[in-house]
């Protein structure tokens, strides 16, 4: 699988796709959607679609792409090669969501959470297939959030397409399983061949499963935490695992908008420091107050230095 | 000049993590 488009800048998200089989442009097709790498604290999340003519579902089943979750990395690789060779009737496309995109989306001021990100990735891929001329009739997808709401959303978005949202769709529908293999293989490659834009020298890539509760992953996170800069972009710094480690082991960093929208101690302290409106009326006592600096200096944030 | 306050004085791997651009 050629991930060079993603590797060129792995801080950004990227779409990769196979060619479109001619049969998919002329016959009614089914399309499966699945994801890989939702839970890990490292690496991208990949959304994948796989599509083929409805009439060729049996051929797909014969490729034995089912039960992808039970497969080893090598077995998935082998099945992907099978799918890739079946390019006369199977097409695929992937949306690789970089860990940086996931983190910044989740942390930006107007929050863009993981479910919304997932929905949009899936919708984007389906639209891509339609735009490429795939004659889409059926879409099968695993649940992301409440199944009925997701099904309604997709059905409204793609009228005329029969949408089926089911938990564990990858074990029910071979086309979803095929999508799952594409997504997982892409994620495996992306992580194994990760190019660190941070010049860290030889970086140990033995991070275990990448899941937050894996001791090997936790050890890797501890070893690769820079006290000032935090983590390399491989890490999803919006994950609570990463944030907790940063809070305990990295140096404190304060931003102008630290209190915005987060309530908490500083906001309530600020409220306590507010003067009563009544204090602005009435005669003020002569407090022997210090002479205020001239506005020339205050407007320019300049002040006298007492000591270095 | 950074738009944040870093509570630290000392070495930092600026060249490795920080890529200035005009």
């Amino acid at each position, binding site marked *: 699988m050629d991930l060079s488009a993603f590797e060129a800048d792995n801080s950004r998200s990227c779409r990769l796709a196979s060619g479109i089989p001619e049969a998919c442009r002329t016959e009614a097709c089914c399309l499966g959607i699945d994801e890989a790498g939702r839970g890990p604290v490292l690496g991208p999340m990949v959304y994948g679609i796989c599509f083929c003519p409805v009439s060729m579902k049996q051929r797909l089943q014969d490729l034995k792409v089912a039960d992808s979750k039970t497969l080893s990395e090598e077995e998935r690789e082998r099945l992907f090669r099978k799918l890739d060779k079946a390019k006369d009737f199977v097409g695929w496309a992937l949306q690789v969501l970089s860990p940086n995109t996931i983190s910044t989306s989740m942390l930006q001021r107007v929050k863009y959470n993981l479910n919304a990100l997932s929905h949009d990735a899936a919708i984007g891929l389906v639209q891509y297939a339609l735009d490429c001329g795939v004659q889409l009739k059926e879409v099968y997808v695993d649940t992301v959030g409440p199944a009925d709401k997701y099904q309604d959303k997709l059905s409204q978005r793609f009228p005329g397409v029969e949408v089926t949202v089911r938990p564990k769709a990858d074990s029910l529908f071979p086309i979803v399983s095929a999508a799952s293999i594409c997504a997982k293989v892409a994620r495996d490659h992306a992580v194994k061949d990760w190019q660190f834009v941070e010049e860290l020298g030889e970086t140990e890539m033995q991070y275990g499963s990448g899941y937050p509760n894996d001791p090997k992953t936790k050890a890797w996170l501890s070893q690769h935490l820079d006290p*000032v800069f935090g983590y390399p972009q491989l890490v999803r710094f919006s994950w609570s695992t990463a944030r907790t480690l940063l809070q305990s082991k990295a140096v404190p960093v*304060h*931003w*102008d908008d630290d209190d915005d929208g987060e309530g908490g101690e500083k906001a309530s302290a600020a409220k306590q420091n507010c003067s009563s409106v009544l204090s602005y009326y009435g005669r003020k006592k002569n407090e022997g107050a*210090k*002479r205020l*600096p*001239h*506005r*020339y*200096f205050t*407007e*320019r*944030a*300049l*002040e*006298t*230095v*007492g*000591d*270095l | *000049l*950074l*738009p*944040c*306050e*870093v*509570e*630290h*004085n*000392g*070495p*930092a*791997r*600026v*060249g490795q993590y*920080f890529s200035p651009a005009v």
Partner: protein
Amino acid sequence: AEQWVVIAPDSVVEAPKKAETEPVFIRLRNPKTDEASLYLLSNNTQQLYEVKAFKEEYHSWFIGQTVQHDGRLLFITPMDPLFLVLPYFLKAGKEGKFQPVDQVVVDEDFPCCSRLLKCPKTLQALCHITEEKEIGGQKFNRYSKEKTLEWLKKKVDRTVKALKSSNTCVGGAVKSSTFIRTKHNSEEKEEDYIRYAHGLISEYIAEDLSLDLHKY
């Protein structure tokens, strides 16, 4: 921290001829606040500079391969040493006596103040704020309010010129300092400039003198 980020004139950092003539930071009595403030004497005490800091919240520096918590940017600018010497003459002037200058410029809390007298400009300029007598080859000085006010007025006039040429907003309206008008703002009157300049000069003198200058 052992380093700071500073903008300073070349004259400050010009290589000194001897180690003992390197520029030095000193703490002296601020003529406005009476508290300690930081100043700098250039190599061989040729010139006095004041130290101001650009300071906003939430700043730090990357300097090479280090991070510096202190996010201030220091500005070092030349300053007339007479402003720092004047408070001592004001105080001594209450006695009404002529005194040698090295007996006037004395401060228990800031013994470095005597170094101001080594600045060539200081002794040359004393005549602007004092009356002078010479007896037996020795000079004696006594504070003169009239001379001081005249000297301060010249400072205000120069400041007005500088404000105009730098297009500084001195009017009552609030305007961003980065906002540049294409047309000259005719609403800013001469009085606004003088008021503003008086305020700036008052940053370097005691309150009573500032009030006297305002009347003058």
